[in-house]
């Protein structure tokens, strides 16, 4: 199985570039610039240095002893993306795209954001590189991820509230595409996940693949063998694609993507696009999409803003279709339990997004039993979620 798309960005049926003509030349230019950059050792070195000295990589692989004991099965290792600068995996990608934008001579970054992590990560890189920054964010997400909004403001980014639709990530992304259409000559659009039009899915995956490369080497060092399963939450799918990347050719390693089950798949209120969506075209690519019978995009629901999206990256759709990865869903309530579990057993407050992966990692650990090894991607820290979680406790 090839892990690369065809020349115009298709993974089988999935992917592609479904955008207005106005954006097409920019995407073609971006793809060229991206390939040039990756072929330039100086760029690659600059990216690596920035990951090391600024982001704080490598992030550790941590054996969660008490969590392992709690589930009583396979050993659970956590890939600690929560320790990255700004608190999530998102920065790996924004550093890459930011450096690329500078190389392309752009002075202005724009981004959409759900949980605010990608917005913060983009605003951060904009500050680092001395660029302007504009972030589109749904009003509902502005409410539920207040600390990240504050951080963006301090970083001098302009946060544009999006009031259409459910006022969450989908609407922010639509609005960002509109804004980019108007400013495409001057502005570099930093997409935060492995979705969107080609080349974003591969570019973001490549910038995030450092997670998987490190994790593979670390698990070999810690355990002396490859893990039985690698688990990651899937919103658009960038942290999952990043960690999966390290293990794609290790066919014995199960790759498990965890979608947001929201109130339960049966209720229809969830964000499990692969599980419960159909193939469709949204935000520039063909993939699984939550949609009505007449092709209208449906609203997603998840407790976690970063997973609250009705689409998914096209390569995940491809992996699901080909069976290289399997996808399951974890509900809001299950994720909340996992949030508290990790906090209280390990002293690690996870992002609500990441809590979905923790829940599934526990299940897999139980199923595998003692002697097994599970690696879960702890994609971010939960500081942004404190208010939401405490409000739910009351």
């Amino acid at each position, binding site marked *: 199985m090839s892990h690369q798309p065809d020349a*115009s960005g298709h993974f089988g049926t999935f992917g*592609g*570039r*479904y*955008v*207005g*003509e*106005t*954006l*097409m*030349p*920019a995407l*073609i230019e971006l793809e060229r610039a991206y390939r040039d950059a990756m072929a330039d050792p100086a760029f690659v070195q600059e990216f690596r240095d920035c990951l090391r000295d600024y982001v704080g990589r490598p992030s550790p692989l941590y054996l969660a002893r008490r969590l392992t004991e709690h589930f009583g099965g396979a050993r659970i290792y956590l890939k600690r993306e929560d320790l990255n600068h700004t608190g999530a995996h998102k920065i790996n990608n924004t550093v890459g795209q930011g450096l690329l934008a500078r190389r392309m001579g752009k002075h202005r970054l724009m981004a959409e954001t759900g949980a605010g992590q990608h917005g913060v990560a983009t605003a951060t890189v904009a500050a680092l590189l001395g660029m302007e920054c504009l972030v589109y964010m749904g009003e509902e997400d502005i409410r539920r991820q207040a600390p990240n909004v504050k951080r963006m403001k301090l970083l001098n980014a302009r946060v544009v509230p999006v009031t*259409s*639709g459910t006022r969450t990530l*989908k*609407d922010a992304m*639509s609005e960002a*595409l*509109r804004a980019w*259409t*108007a*400013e*495409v*000559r001057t502005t570099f659009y930093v997409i935060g996940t492995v979705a969107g039009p080609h080349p974003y899915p591969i570019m973001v995956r490549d910038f995030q693949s450092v997670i998987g490369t490190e994790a593979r080497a670390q698990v070999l060092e810690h355990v002396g063998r490859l893990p039985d399963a690698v688990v990651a939450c899937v919103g658009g799918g960038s942290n999952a694609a990043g960690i999966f990347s390290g293990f794609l050719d290790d066919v014995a390693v199960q790759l498990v993507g965890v979608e947001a089950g929201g109130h339960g798949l049966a209720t229809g209120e969830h964000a499990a696009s692969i599980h419960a969506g*159909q*193939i*469709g*075209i*949204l*935000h*520039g690519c*063909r993939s699984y*999409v939550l*949609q009505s*019978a*007449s*092709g*209208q*995009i449906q609203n997603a629901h998840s407790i976690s803003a970063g997973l609250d999206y009705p689409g998914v990256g096209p390569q995940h759709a491809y992996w699901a279709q080909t069976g290289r990865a399997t996808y399951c869903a974890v509900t809001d309530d299950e994720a909340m339990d996992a949030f508290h579990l990790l906090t209280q057993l390990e002293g690690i407050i996870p992002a609500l997004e990441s809590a979905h992966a923790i829940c599934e990692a526990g299940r897999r650990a139980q199923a595998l039993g003692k002697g097994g090894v599970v690696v879960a991607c702890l994609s971010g820290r939960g500081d942004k979620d404190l208010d939401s979680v405490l409000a739910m406790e009351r």
Partner: protein
Amino acid sequence: MNRIDQTFSKLKREGRKGLVGYLTAGDPNLAASERNIRAAIDAGLDVLELGVPFSDPTADGPTIQEAAQRALAAGTTLADVLGMVSRLRRDYADIPIVLFGYANPFYRYGFDRIAEDAARAGADGLLVVDMPFEESEELRAPLVKHGLCFILLVAPTTPPGRAAAILAGAQGFVYYIMVTGVTGARESVVSDLAAQIGALRQVTGLPIAVGFGVSNGAQARDAATTADAVVVGSALVRAAHEGRAGAFVRELRDGLSGRSPAA
């Protein structure tokens, strides 16, 4: 010769600039939108772009976003739109009708099926805003089979070489997007339009309609100076919403033919 070609030939013969009007089907509901559309046609539209509402119209400004929301809230489906095309076609034999929408509703409906059903209903072409030439093969093939045009857009950002390439086998007309941005009425029309259209004429012999941002008769006239037709979308949607689709089309017509709107 299809209705689009016939219309542009006729315009040429008459020395007139064409008026292409966009209205969202089903806004605010199916019946009212059909009345508005008929009023617009009756007032002098040369080509109808019939908008298929979509939940996430990423190439549209607020006016058309809201129109789509109203249409969807009223339950409008692609099948409803096709039904409307049939009814219009019964009364208007000659006006070209182009379905204007986003890829996903067409995709869900099925590219083969939409080509067949649209042709049967009496449509003349499809314009899919988020389907660039590179992704259009799957849809173009069945359209060709059923005798429909796949209308292509060219943007100010499109380099000449690319325009030539994507327009090589194009049919009907070319939709030239005057502004770098989404749909929506704008204060004034871009200044170097003539040069842009001139460049475009180098690579295509098709008629050129210019759109995005035209909001009144004077702008329509300016925009049409070197083009073959102007497209009016958001401003017409707004006028229809205010119950004055016909009057506004007449104002645009007057503008196009050089009569001052105050006259």
